[in-house]
Each structure stands twice: as C-alpha cells, then as structure tokens.
C-alpha cells in the first residue's frame, strides 16, 4: 500500500521531479553541497536490507567520541542510534525486523519550536541540532518529541555555571545528523558504516521519492513522511509499521513507532492564525466602537 501523497510532497514533486528522479534511480548515497544553501538532506532506512549488525551504532559512538558500547540497550546520552529487533508474524512465517532508531529530523520539529531558550534549532541543511553549550537539560524537548528521542545527561553543562540557582539539570543529547560532515559535503557516519547499504543519504526530496518508489516496488510501507507532519527520515518496510509498533510495545521497547504520530505544534495551528490577525481585529473593534459613539452620541456608551 502506498501512503497518500501529502500536499507538501506534491508541491516538491512537481517542483523537482527531474532531480528526484535521477537520484532515486541510482539509489546510491548522494552527497549534497551544504554551501548551495537551503538544500535539505534526508535519509532512507531500508528495513528490508538491515540485518541488525549494529555497525551504524558503533560508528556513531566513535564519531561522537563516546565510550564504545557494543550492545546498547536503548538511546542514551552516549548512544544516539539504537538498533531495535522484533519478531513479526506474517502470512509467510515469522520475520525478524531490525530498526535503527535515532532522531527523525522533523520538518517542523516540536523539540526545537518549543525549546524555551531557542537553542535547539532546525538548521537550513535539515538536521535538528541542540546547542550543548547552553542546554539546561529541562527535558521539554523529550516530552514534546513524538518519539522521546533526546536523552538527559545529568550533572554537566551550562547549568553548573548558574549554580546555586536551581535552573537546569544537565544537557540533552541526541543525533545531530552529523551536521559537521553534512556541511563538509559528506555523508553521516552511520550511512558510511552500514555494510548492507541499508541507510541511504541524499537530498530530502530525492530520499522521499526513493522511499516511496522502493515501498511501491516491494508492496511495502513508508514511515516518517506523514508522521509528526513530515520528517526527513524515511523508513521502508515490507511489514506494516502498525505491526512493528505493536511488537515494540509487547517487548517494552523505546522508542515506539506509532503510525501518524502527532506533532504538538500542529495542535495550535488554528489559534496561531487567529493570533496573527488579532492586532487587525483589535484595531477594527476600536474603530467600530468609536464610530458607534460618534453616531449615537457620548451617552450611548455609558
């Protein structure tokens, strides 16, 4: 089943069908020149290729200078990529599915939009990056992230400088999309490390198009295009993501994989529009009141 095409996708497809087509056809990791400006990057994680070897996680730990943990049990401040494994019953027998999990780098990241200090930001290249120097570890980003991705490291960071003021607890850490490599025109460490070529990297448009093409070819599913209103990480799977999420729930795994995960920010869209026209409404109301006073006389208002 193909996912319905979103409005955004439709626009982007019609705008750059050619570029997307060529990149998708090759299916290879394409690197992007960050210098070229607003060109955003994306990833496809192909669950039909991933065999759960954990090399991506190790590469990520090395790249970020973390102590090497060959068998991480989840996302931690020192492990930004966690490979989950679930068994799923399908008509053709039980299937093992391995799911590398990390930040999805949402299009409208709630974690960044709601950071009370605006030090968690969506970069023009696409990755969502927390400024570790100023994060106070309030864990709000984790609370509003549909997947609870950012992880708290206690006892470090800016808040130590503010002591004894009771502001903060530590620093939130998560995948930064290897923004330094991306800016240098290279692919993220996890992409390069995967022996199966299960993680593809390229422009966001190309990756989105490729994910849908690949899903169509295997009669599979895409996760990450609709979720949270759109992300730049697209999982492709032969088994439905609802089944994967159910299996994760049974195993008590985090993060879960809810289909059509919601974005907190989209819950206030309607009010945001009302808010942006409120000044005009206020001006008109005052004008109207003054007009009434003028025509009916001062006493009418008493």
């Amino acid at each position, binding site marked *: 089943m193909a996912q319905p095409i979103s409005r955004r996708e439709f626009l982007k497809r019609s705008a750059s069908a050619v570029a997307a087509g060529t990149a998708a056809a090759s299916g290879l990791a394409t690197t992007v020149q960050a210098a070229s400006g607003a060109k955003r990057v994306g990833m496809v994680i192909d669950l039909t290729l991933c065999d759960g070897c954990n090399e991506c996680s190790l590469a990520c730990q090395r790249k970020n200078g973390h102590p090497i943990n060959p068998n991480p049990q989840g996302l931690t401040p020192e492990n930004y990529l966690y490979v989950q494994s679930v068994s799923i019953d399908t008509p053709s027998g039980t299937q093992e599915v391995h799911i590398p999990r990390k930040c999805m780098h949402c299009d409208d990241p709630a974690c960044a939009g*709601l950071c*009370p200090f*605006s030090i968690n930001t969506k970069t023009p290249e696409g990755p969502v990056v927390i400024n570790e120097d100023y994060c106070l570890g309030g864990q709000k980003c984790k609370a509003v992230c549909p997947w609870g991705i950012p992880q708290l490291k206690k006892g470090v960071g800016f808040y130590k400088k503010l002591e004894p003021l*009771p502001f903060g607890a530590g620093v939130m850490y998560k995948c930064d999309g290897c923004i330094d490599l991306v800016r240098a025109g290279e692919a993220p460490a996890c992409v390069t490390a995967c022996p199966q070529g299960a993680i593809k990297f390229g422009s966001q448009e190309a990756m989105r198009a490729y994910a849908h093409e690949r899903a169509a070819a295997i009669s599979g599913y895409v996760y990450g295009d609709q979720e949270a209103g759109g992300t730049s990480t697209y999982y492709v799977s032969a088994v439905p993501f609802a089944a994967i999420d159910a299996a994760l729930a049974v195993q008590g795994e985090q993060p879960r994989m809810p289909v059509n995960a919601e974005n907190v920010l989209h819950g206030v869209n309607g009010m945001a529009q009302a808010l942006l026209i*409120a*000044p005009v*409404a*206020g*001006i008109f109301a005052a004008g109207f009141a003054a007009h009434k006073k003028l025509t009916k006389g001062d006493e009418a208002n008493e």
Partner: protein
Amino acid sequence: MSDRILWKEGKVKRQSLSSILVHWSVALSTFVLIFSGFGQLPMYKRFGIVNLPGLAWAGDYPLTLKMHYLAAIVLTLAVFYHLTEIVLTKDFDLFPKKGDLREAVKILLAMVGIGKEPPSDKYLAEQRLSYAFIGSNLFILILTGMLKVYKNLPGITVNNALVLWATQLHNLATVLLVLGVLGHLAAFIAKPNRKLLPALFTGKVDLAYVQKRHSLWFKRLERQASSSQDSRHIG
C-alpha cells in the same frame, strides 16, 4: 471622554466601560500568560507544582501551550484595541510626563508621612510610570511572541539568530512584567490607593477623594463642565 463630576451622587465618573473591559481582559490574559508561560519552561514538574492537588495538568505542555496561545489572542486584541482608542480619542492621560519620576518619589514619601503630596492630574505620576513599564513589557512580549508563533507554523523557518533574540527578550520581558504586576498589586496595600479600586468595577470614584488627591483633574473637569453647554445643569 465620558469623565465628569456627578455632584448628586458624590462621585466622579472615571473609567468608561471600554476601559474597564480593556483592563480586565489584559489582567486576566496576563495572569494566564504568566502561568502558562512558566508552564512552558520545564518548571512545574521540577519544582513539584504538578504534585499539588488539582494542578497535575500544569505539567502538560500541549495544554499549557494551548492556554498560552488562547490568552495571547485575548491580550493582543485588547492591547491593539486600546492603542487604537488612544489614537482616535487622543487621550494621553496615562502617558508619562517630564518630572514624573521625581513626583512619584514625592507621592511615595508623602504616603509614609514625609512632606506634602503634590496635586495630581487624573493619574498619579507612579500610575503613569507603571503604565509605561507594564505596557512596554507587554508590547515586547506581544511582538516577540508573534515571531515565536510565526516560526512554529508548519513549513516556516525563521532565521535562528532572530528567534534566539526574540526568545531571550520574551523571557526577560516576562521577568520584568512579573515585577511590574507585583508592584502594581502592592500599590493597593497602601490605603489611599484603594480609593481607586471602584474605578475599575463601577467606573466611579468618590468625589471627596478626587478633590483631595487629584485636584488638577478635578479643576479640569469643572472647567470642562462649565464650558460645555449641556453639562451646565448637571451641577
């Protein structure tokens, strides 16, 4: 302006219905904005507020975010209504004047028994200062808040440095506003100021209070009444 002396009642009409509505919609929305704003800082969980009976919801970010947006609509409407009214009526009574700082100190000293209180116009010097202080902080909060709202719209990205500054200003203005509101409320601990409270409920204050404390305003109202044809027989 609808201000006038009501000799028979022994009162002075001080605030119009629209001023009363503006004050209370600003006050109510500001209280909600302060509460929900602090809720947007990850504070209520940390300091155990969510464990207080009936306040478990205070740690619910999506909820406090909705409250913040809703109250922001009310505040923005009221503030722009008020600003337009000023422009249309040219009523600048609440705007600070030169020498207000010195006059405010004199009034404060007089309240504790030092020296004589200078005669005031419709508003005391500290009211004009408090208006300017609270008003400018609210204005900064609205402007920076608007940018924060705009950047949260789907598909919109605003320059990160601009957002960073808006957020820091939003937070700083919040602290200053809280101090301003506390000062504003503390003003009503002083007995003489309490005579102003009815102005924002019934719209009227005692004539004797006005004659004594706001003598400049009183003279202004008298002059206005005698020069205006239809008000002459009121007195």
